[in-house]
């Protein structure tokens, strides 16, 4: 019954941030808990009302803050609690993926999935698969280094200014002319 992914002794343990919607995946994860489904402990969940709320910049921010992998999970396409929020999210992420690709982030560090409130076991599998995959990829440093090099605003890493625009990594990239077009598309 224990399906915790075995950690390579003393080896690298990835840190994974999960952005999940309140109605489907968060509740599915609750169900995994009430069903006592064992899984890897590497994932930290951030609860949002809907995947439609997820700004792709959250992902870049999480990478910057040391995440080695990301999970984005919400309701199944036709089941969105808010009708269409996940549809908008999917559109955004399609563009976002291209951007990540452009930046050289291995797309398999980011897991997109649909987990409904009744899919506790699926949530466990999503978590374990992501951990296994990212563990194999090793620590993610490229982006962090890149941001450190390119950041124009040094305060970007201090918690007090976390929410402020000028500290956002993407904007620092845009300011360097790396991806202004892309960043526009992301929000369009």
């Amino acid at each position, binding site marked *: 019954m224990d399906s915790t992914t075995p950690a390579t002794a003393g080896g690298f343990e990835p840190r994974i941030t999960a952005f999940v919607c309140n109605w489907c995946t968060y509740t599915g994860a609750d169900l995994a808990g009430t069903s006592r489904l064992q899984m890897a*402990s590497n994932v930290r969940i951030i609860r949002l009302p*809907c995947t439609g709320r997820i700004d792709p910049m959250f992902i870049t921010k999480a990478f910057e803050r040391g995440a080695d992998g990301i999970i984005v999970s919400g309701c199944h396409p036709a089941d969105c609690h808010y009708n269409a929020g996940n549809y908008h999210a999917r559109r955004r992420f399609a563009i976002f993926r291209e951007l990540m690709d452009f930046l050289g982030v291995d797309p398999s560090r980011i897991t997109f999935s649909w987990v409904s409130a009744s899919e506790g076991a699926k949530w466990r599998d999503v978590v374990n698969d992501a951990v296994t995959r990212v563990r194999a990829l090793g620590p993610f440093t490229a982006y962090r280094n890149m941001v450190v090099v390119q950041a124009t605003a040094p305060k970007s890493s201090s918690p007090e200014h*976390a*929410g402020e625009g000028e500290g956002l990594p993407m904007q620092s990239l845009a300011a360097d002319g790396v991806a202004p077009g892309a960043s526009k598309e992301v929000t369009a």
Partner: protein
Amino acid sequence: MARIGVFVCHCGENIGRTVDCHAVAEGCKDVPGVVHSVDYKYMCSDPGQQMVKKAIEEKGLTGVVVAACSPHMHEKTFRRAAAGAGLNAFLCEMANVREHCSWIHEDREKATVKAIDITRTIIEKVKHNVPLSTIRIPVTRRALVIGGGIAGIQAALDIADGGREVILVEKGPSIGGHMSQLSETFPTLDCSQCILTPRMVEVYQHPRIKLYAYSEVESVEGYIGNFKVTVRRKARSVDEEKCNGCGACTQVCPNKKIPSEFDCGLGKRTAIYVPFPQAVPNLPTVDRNKCLLFMNRAKGRPDTCKKCAEACEKGAIDFDQQDRLITEDVGAIVVATGYQLYTIGKDQPKDNLKGYGEYGYGTIPDVIDGLQFERLASASGPTSGKILRPSDGKVPKRIVFLQCIGSRDPQKGMEYCSKICCMYVAKHTMLYHHKVHDGVATVFYMDIRAAGKGYEEFSRRAIEEEGAQYIRGRVSRMWREGDVIKILGFDTLEGEPIEMDADMVVLATAMRPQPGIDVLAQKLSVSYDQHGFINEAHPKLRPVETNTAGIYVAGACQAPRDIPDAVAMASATASKVLGLFANEMLEREPTVARVDEGTCAGCFHCERVCAYGAVEHKDIKDRAGNVVRVIAYVNPGVCQGCGTCEATCPSKSVELQGFTDEQIWSEIQALGV
């Protein structure tokens, strides 16, 4: 500076077995802003809640984090406790260390580290929480019902009987809808008029129902509890106050050859007419497209005919009457606009449906549809209930019914099953058998769908006791030879082609929403499917609500429905409306979006992604009152709090309260190394 209190729960052994709760409490102590951090066996117990309250009061906490079970379990409990101690409820959050930690891990050390992470994340979030108050919206406790078929009638009566005022808007001259056209109704074969007419009269006489017949909804503004509706009262050319319904006018009108809509073209009416004798309101209407006087006026000629006006002793006829626009405030809306039948004819303006040439395109006069058959079978119909065929008035001895015409036909018609036709065809064969004893009724069907209480028994009765011949297979083509209709079909059970002669053919044509439903749905900003049927909010759990709060749906405008379904839905909408009206104010979670007026660029990306139509335009004016800028405004009554707009806004000018960028950034920040 924040003063946060952290309360770590053991949940007996549930958390404590895997997570070192004391260590979690200790581990949070050094987080900047945390002034109190403790652990306890059962936080949700009364002593547990008292601990929270006491700490708020004694330590002057500005935020509370309870590290315990899922917020879906006890968020409300602890928010209530915090509020009890004078702290704004929305400054209290839960860190889920049970479902998302202790229950899914065994390694105590790792679980404890994770529990600390989870708690610290929420601590950072709470630092950015601001006091919010539940949104309270006033509710206008009157309802609008659109459509006066059986569904609309039932909804109006139930709401009015529940003590609230109702405005019933019907576009036709009379209420009653399609049910008033039916002869007898399955599965009990009771007379449609007999059960419907009393309800229509009740509507008319109800002190709390205001009936606007011959009227349409012009525009709708506002949101749940606060709709402003403009109704166009079309000019009947008859003064309602003066007319006493004597009918003298209709007797004298010289234009008597107009096909009657009520009789589906099988009977005739005059230009000034009452659609049927039991009409409610029992007032005549001048059909301005057919009245000689108006036809002359349209050509710029002087009025000639005024026979109706001359016959009217009350002087009720008013040829110069104009449409009137009336505005009503309501808190809830029920849509009950019903259905139409798929027209077999070739001419379907503005419709991409092609019709069915192989069945005679309505060019063979004795090929009729189900509603026409209802009129023939109805005692009050054009033939006084005798089954006579339209072409020559003879009694058809061989009648053939074709099921699924236009339904279950993704190629030319609708892919869906119209749900009621199997039943009404069975009914039609019985009515026919009762009236033409020596006649033979044959039905071409694909499946018999009779899934209701007493339905299967009913359709079997048609076959076993009333002699209907059921042939499984679709018909390919029909044509007329002399005065018989030739039918080319196939019996898939026998495996043989069939060429059959019929005297009359009845097509069970598909049910579709009323024309114009799309325009109405757009006015109401409710969604509809590709066929025009109004979408329910959830097919199982919210079947009579629409996606727009405060707007409900009943009857055949939501999907093909029979009378029992339509009435059940109508009563369900009434209970929803009365539930909404039970309070003077509407309370809602404050998780709604807010626009920063200073930075909003007015690009309205947010408006485009909002599935609820919550984003409105707001004019920013200068001192002289000139509009200088148009920006977005999120109506808190309508916003459902999905946050899609916030993720979309290019200038980060719209924020979802409770899930602001700042809050989420801090959570991500807290996860950092």
